[in-house]
């Protein structure tokens, strides 16, 4: 296919524009995290730091035993527990359910009920969940968050897996059944290996969904023992921190795990989601 010179110029200009608009805020976040506090308050602003100061990262990661380290590292641990735990449980229980819906004609009504629960705003659940877990003395714990995040991650994972299973061929499974394999065995050794890309996508998207969550964590946790990164960041930025660079550094660190996931599993993620669209 041939493109005129003008056409090519327009194309590259458009791509450049989009790339700049999309990446500039992120680049600025990184720059803020290494600028000196004085430079950050300068008017007119200089866009590059005089020297790159990485000390805030050392401070956050607790390498010099400063105040901030506790909050950040605790929150990182809690976020990891809550996000990986709920993604794991969602896969463990969501896959059999998805299989039941996709291959065993599971009741449509239940599928829609699950979807409906996912669609309810979290505030609908938060009041009773809060009362329930406080009655059990289970507030302030990342393990409570695992259970709570299942409210959104589990229906989401089930729905995504079901849509992805729908587009897989059934013939191989029939062969396994003819050989006398039970349902669970078929699921484990025939279906799941075939659905691996979808599985990875579902796991990642579930993890990201939980990693990003703020509202439940804000309400159910009041201190270090359960606070996750998003809540820690919000506290950080609202408290007595006059150094904007520190807020930026926390932001960069909190974005790293999901960014790595997104970049490395980009293809999986996108195909997993796109397949979900074939049937509502």
């Amino acid at each position, binding site marked *: *296919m041939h493109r005129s010179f003008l056409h090519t110029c327009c*194309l590259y200009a*458009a*791509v450049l524009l*989009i790339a700049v608009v*999309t990446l500039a*805020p992120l680049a*600025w*976040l990184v720059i803020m995290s290494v600028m000196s506090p004085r430079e*950050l308050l*300068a*008017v*007119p*602003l200089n866009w590059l730091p005089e020297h790159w100061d990485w000390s805030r990262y050392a401070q956050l990661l607790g390498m010099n035993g400063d105040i901030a380290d506790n909050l950040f590292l605790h929150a990182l641990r809690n976020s990891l527990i809550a996000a990986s735990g709920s993604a794991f449980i969602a896969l*463990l*229980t969501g896959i*059999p*359910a998805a299989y*039941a819906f996709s291959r*065993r004609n*599971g009741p449509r009504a*239940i599928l829609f009920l*699950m979807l409906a*629960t996912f669609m*309810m*705003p979290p*505030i*609908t*659940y938060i*009041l009773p969940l809060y*009362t*329930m877990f406080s009655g059990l003395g289970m507030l302030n714990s990342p393990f409570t968050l695992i*259970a709570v995040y*299942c*409210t959104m991650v*589990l*229906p989401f994972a089930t729905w995504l897996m079901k849509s992805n299973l729908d587009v897989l061929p059934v013939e191989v499974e029939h062969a396994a059944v003819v050989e006398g394999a039970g349902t669970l065995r078929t699921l484990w050794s025939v279906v799941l290996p075939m659905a691996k890309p979808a599985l990875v996508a579902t796991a990642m998207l579930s993890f990201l969904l939980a990693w990003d969550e*703020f*509202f439940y964590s*804000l309400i159910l946790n009041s201190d270090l023992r359960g606070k996750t*990164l*998003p809540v820690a*960041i*919000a506290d950080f*930025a609202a408290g007595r921190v006059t150094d*904007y660079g520190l*807020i930026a550094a926390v932001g960069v660190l*909190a*974005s790293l795990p*999901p960014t790595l*996931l*997104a*970049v490395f599993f*980009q293809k999986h993620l996108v195909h997993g*989601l*796109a397949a*979900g*669209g*074939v*049937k509502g």
Partner: protein
Amino acid sequence: MIMESWRRKREVWVLLAPALAILAVVTFTPLLRTLWLSFTNAEITALDQAVEWVGFENYIWALTDPDFRDALWRTLYFTIMSVGLETVFGVAVAMLLNVEFKGRALVRTLIILPWAVPTIVNAMMWRLIFHPDYGSFNAALTQLGITESYRSWLGDPGIAMNMVILADVWKNYPLIAFVVLAALQTIPRELFDAARVEGAGAWHQFRSIIMPGIIGPLLVIVILRTIEAFRVFDIVYAMTRGGPADSTKTASFFVYQEYFAYLRSGSGASYAVLVAVISALMIAVYFNMIRRQNQGGY
């Protein structure tokens, strides 16, 4: 045969049981309890106080509260604007990235980055960028000569909500772009070639080839985004806390406030149920669209 079908039925329930058991505890029960609470005068206290059934009093109170009605309109505005813009940009960028050019793979990888930034980080980042005295947005505008002096963005009730929408669109348009891009790649090239031979214009190609090819995945992702947008809380909480002069106070914020600031759990529940019902109505509209589309009636 009958035995066989029984066995299969039982198996379905066995497969569903673990998921349903968890959902029963963390979603179905709370849902029913919220419904019940919304008809009572329950409050948060450390004292034993009898909870009374008050019928529809809370709902009447909520619906006659002009501030809450304002908040609902505001939330609707946020939802329509941000999901609408994300869809337009998402589709446009997807079509651009579907064209061949040098460095396409790199650009595709880089564009997904905003989506990976956690919502709260996104909110903090834009709050710093829009800072009235030291923000880089003001700095860029003045250094480029577009504005003469620094001004307030998040402190101006006329535009604060739009700045929040901008931040939301920036984070979420890549997701839509990528889903649409994946769908575009499944459209056979021959369709375009045939259209070109017939001399069909760009708009016609878009309507008759691209739209049918992407509408399925696009609708699903738009539903997901609409659900998220209508229950928006975190980005507002971190960017403006509902200010200035309540101009960004969304419906979720109201529920939060009713419950945790004013401690009225019964009344708070009725606000929550109302938000849920409106949200469900919007989803019903989408589902209707999906059904029509699956029947080929797009």
